[in-house]
């Protein structure tokens, strides 16, 4: 095992460690976006909007990658049904929080009319219960079978929300439902408003918007809303990060890593591996449900067909870019994915649309390619390409995924040594890394070996402390 990989030395050089890396990456990303915006002569409003949208996607992808890291990076559970848990989260939240049905309203169905926060909790519980439903039988299966079961589940969830039977039904005497294929209007009070009202800050918030009116004269509210919501999402990312770091460094997390490395060894040490796996799976599912809620709760409406497996695939790319098994890597992967692969091409399209003369692009590939063949005129094909950048973006993502699996399956930060021991065990150089985990609960049976260069997990068996071996790409078979 290589102990001095590039990321390790990098971590030590960047001030602030993990947080420093994340902040530096985010700063560089924002700077690049702002600079391109300035170069294009975007208005301040446009700039702020771009930043708000970028922050939004960085936030949701970082959250989802962190949740997936708990499944795959820590426990070795190959879950490719992420989008199903997200869908259940937002739909159950909508069911609980939508106002009670009133005839003549815009919405065909109502909800239970409970506060948004109760809806969020209900959504998370529903997602984790769905996780339990799958975990109970499926965790006994091989990793690839679990993969197929989870993706099938996410499609079952989508078909269920699409079906006419669940479109409208009665619950506790109220007319509720999931809206079927035409979608569900999320007509509860804006969660931002409820949030600030709860703390009695709504007027202060409106005051802030008025202050913004100085720099953005025309209707500043959507811009400020977007920016503030971005900040809310980033603080949720911080919360996820903290939660998963604590989980990973706790005795519970050490057992999870032990299961990932060698389930039989962990089991032979008396650990109820199935119980641990189910708990970890449910926790991850609840976090995915919450991420789904936060992604879609301000979008005005949701339709089942938004929740196609491609979102799952996005999250996986984000995690693999960052490196499975590393929480910092997950956030970093989420940010890089959102900035470069997800928002990047769309931003590029806007950029090209403003730079290039506005010519009508061909409607299909035939008229686009014909001039290239007949008289080597590449312009129509270029316009067609720019027009269809959203599809090509997915092609590009697929290629990136293949490239990553070939050249860097451990991701940016996947090869790091994560110390599981609560006390410093080795030479001063490792002290900075080890000191971060000092806050975890001490295990009584720790037997520190001062000469050990690698830390041995007290209760994990084998080499559960490390994230080597392809950064957790090994299955736990």
């Amino acid at each position: 095992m290589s102990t001095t990989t590039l990321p390790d030395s990098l971590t030590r050089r960047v001030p602030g460690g993990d947080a420093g890396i994340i902040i530096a990456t985010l700063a560089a990303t924002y700077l690049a976006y702002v600079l391109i915006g300035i170069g294009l002569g975007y208005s301040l409003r446009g700039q702020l909007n771009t930043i708000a949208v970028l922050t939004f996607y960085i936030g949701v992808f970082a959250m989802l990658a962190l949740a997936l890291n708990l499944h795959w990076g820590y426990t070795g559970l190959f879950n490719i049904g992420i989008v199903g848990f997200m869908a259940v989260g937002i739909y159950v939240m909508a069911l609980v929080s939508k106002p009670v049905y009133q005839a003549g309203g815009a919405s065909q169905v109502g909800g239970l009319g409970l506060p948004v926060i109760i809806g969020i909790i209900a959504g998370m519980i529903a997602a984790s219960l769905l996780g339990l439903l799958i975990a109970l039988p499926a965790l006994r299966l091989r990793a690839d079978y679990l993969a197929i079961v989870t993706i099938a589940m996410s499609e079952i969830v989508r078909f269920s929300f699409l079906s006419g039977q669940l479109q409208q039904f009665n619950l506790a005497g109220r007319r509720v439902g999931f809206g079927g294929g035409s979608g569900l209007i999320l007509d509860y009070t804006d969660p931002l408003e409820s949030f600030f009202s709860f703390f009695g800050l709504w007027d202060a918030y409106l005051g802030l918007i008025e202050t913004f009116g100085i720099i953005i004269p025309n209707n500043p509210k959507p811009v400020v809303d977007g920016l503030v919501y971005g900040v809310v999402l980033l603080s949720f990312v911080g919360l996820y990060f903290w939660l998963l770091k604590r989980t990973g460094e706790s005795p519970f997390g050490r057992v999870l890593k032990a299961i990932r490395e060698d389930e039989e060894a962990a089991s032979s040490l008396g650990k109820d591996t199935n119980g641990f796996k189910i708990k970890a799976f449910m926790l991850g599912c609840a976090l995915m449900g919450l991420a789904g809620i936060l992604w879609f709760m301000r979008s005005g409406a949701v339709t089942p067909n938004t929740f196609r497996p491609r979102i799952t695939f996005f999250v996986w790319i984000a995690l693999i870019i960052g490196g499975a098994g590393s929480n910092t890597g997950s956030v970093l992967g989420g940010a890089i994915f959102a900035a470069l692969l997800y928002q990047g091409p769309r931003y590029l399209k806007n950029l090209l649309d403003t730079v290039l003369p506005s010519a009508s692009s061909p409607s299909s590939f035939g008229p686009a390619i014909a001039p290239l063949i007949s008289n080597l005129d590449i312009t129509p094909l270029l316009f067609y390409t720019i027009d269809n950048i959203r599809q090509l973006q997915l092609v590009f993502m697929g290629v990136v995924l293949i490239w990553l699996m070939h050249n860097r399956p451990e991701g940016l930060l996947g090869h790091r040594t994560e110390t599981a021991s609560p006390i410093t065990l080795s030479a001063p150089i490792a002290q900075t890394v080890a000191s971060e985990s000092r806050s975890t609960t001490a295990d009584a049976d720790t037997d520190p070996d001062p000469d050990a260069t690698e830390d041995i997990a007290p209760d994990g068996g084998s080499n559960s402390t490390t994230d080597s071996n392809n950064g957790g790409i090994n299955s736990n078979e």
Partner: protein
Amino acid sequence: MGIAETYTRGRRFAVTRPGSILLAIVGFILLFDLAGQLTSGQITFSSVGSLIWDGLMRGLVIGLAGIGLSMTYSILNFANFAHGDYITAGAFSGWATTYLIAGLGRADVGALLLVGAGGSVFGGTLGINVTGTPFAIIAGIIVAGIAAVGLTLAVDKIAYKPIRDESGIALLITSVGVAFALRYLMQFVFGPSVRGTTSQPASLSLYFIDGVVRVNTHDAALIIIGGALMLGVHLLLQRTKLGKAMRAMSDNEDLARVTGIPTEQVVQSVWVIGGGLTGIVGYMFILWKGTLGFNDGWLLLLLIFAAVILGGIGSIYGAITGGLVIGLTASVSVIWIPSTFARATAFIMMIVILLVKPSGIFSGRSTA
């Protein structure tokens, strides 16, 4: 004595295999309900017959497409998520050929080669069906097979071969990347629309108790081609040295290599056979279904996985049987539940089988 023994055996079975008992009970309830619906006239015998026929055809497509997946799964040890897009790729290449031959001189060559992207030309107006344009169809089948072979070999060389020694999961993730790249490249070239590809085929009305079950020429074509493919694969695997080498490899690759089997060549042959089969099935699927879209293969893929797992990975007959079961489940389930849940039922069926018998129906009888 005999009764007591039977009783003990029965009790042991009930204790060790509660899932099977439960399944049997559910099956009986469903049959009972069907009988009730039939006698009360809620549903006619002929409509049940039509559903079963539709399910069998669908199952045949799923099963045939599953053979290729099953072969690569057992020999290369990974679930190939790009398989569905091989199906679509085979279908598009084959149908481009069919369009070109059937519509040459009647429409723009570019529009024909793009299978009428953007509504530029329609299969129905070209009069494409098995009796009307047989040569175009046959040429399409051949091209679909060849193109799919080329594609699978190219993808293998670029994406899978460099990491052949990695774990199945690394290959699986790579295959997901391949799937997305292929699918959206096809969408980029052929457009996002779902187009009709055939004109109405001639059909035969078979009288069945209280009504008719329609069988058309495309059903017949599917059965003939499907039967021929199955027979061919069977002979190939059972009678040739290659088949023996493949079986040896799926059993233990290292052992196969030390006994002198050129494993890399066998892998190539698996891709050739599996790819060709997949391309042809993709073409036949579209011929039978009558519409073509860039998502078709992907939407079929999960059902194919269900069939392969149901039948037992590595078993050709298992894949066919699993396909028929899944196809019938998806079609016939509408008798009891709303049709929007038909596909979901097939997936639930797969999950149930995974729980009751994770190794599949034909487990341990690997033929490829």
